[in-house]
């Protein structure tokens, strides 16, 4: 595709509900990343996928957060029992996944999550 796409662009939910955020990476990109952008915390790394596997989940803030990737393409970030502190912009990025330092990440427009 032309770029990384994310849906929905905005999501308002009530505290305690589950939400799913979707990311479609650039076609052919094997690496996929999720970041969170929130006031006071800046941009934080959440999770990385190479293909369908996630070798690094170290950035997930709690066990309420999970992510999966199927077919080496689309990824879904799920937040269970949402809390107000989960309100943030969730950004997805993809890269070619080539080994080494020169792999550049390209970002989607983000999903703005508001938990009431």
């Amino acid at each position: 595709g032309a770029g990384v796409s994310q849906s929905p662009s905005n999501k308002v939910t009530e505290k305690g509900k589950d939400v799913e955020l979707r990311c479609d990476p650039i076609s052919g990109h094997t690496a996929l990343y999720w970041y969170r952008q929130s006031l006071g915390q800046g941009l934080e790394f959440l999770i990385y996928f190479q293909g369908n596997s996630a070798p690094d989940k170290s950035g997930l803030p709690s066990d309420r957060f999970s992510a999966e990737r199927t077919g080496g393409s689309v990824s879904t970030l799920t937040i269970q029992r949402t809390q107000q502190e989960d309100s943030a912009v969730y950004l997805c990025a993809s890269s070619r996944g080539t080994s080494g330092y020169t792999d550049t990440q390209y970002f989607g427009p983000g999903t703005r999550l508001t938990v009431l």
Partner: protein
Amino acid sequence: AQSVTQPDIHITVSEGASLELRCNYSYGATPYLFWYVQSPGQGLQLLLKYFSGDTLVQGIKGFEAEFKRSQSSFNLRKPSVHWSDAAEYFCAVDFFSGGYNKLIFGAGTRLAVHP
């Protein structure tokens, strides 16, 4: 530990004036550095990147950045700012470990442009 510092939270310049946004990094190995720009309600757009070679790199929209190893800096510059440059700018260092790249971002600098 790896970190990126952007000392200026907000900067205001007049349209047509020159611009320099500061970025300092802390990284144990050779750094791979990026500048991204985020317009309101948008994702991050890559402006430029430094991997190796010439320490002065050119990017899109007339931006350039200079890598100075001795100062651990990677400052972003533009000779003449346009009103459309108003946005938030993020400097990032690429932390390569375990076979993949993780970006570590600075806190961002919000640029306002006066007509």
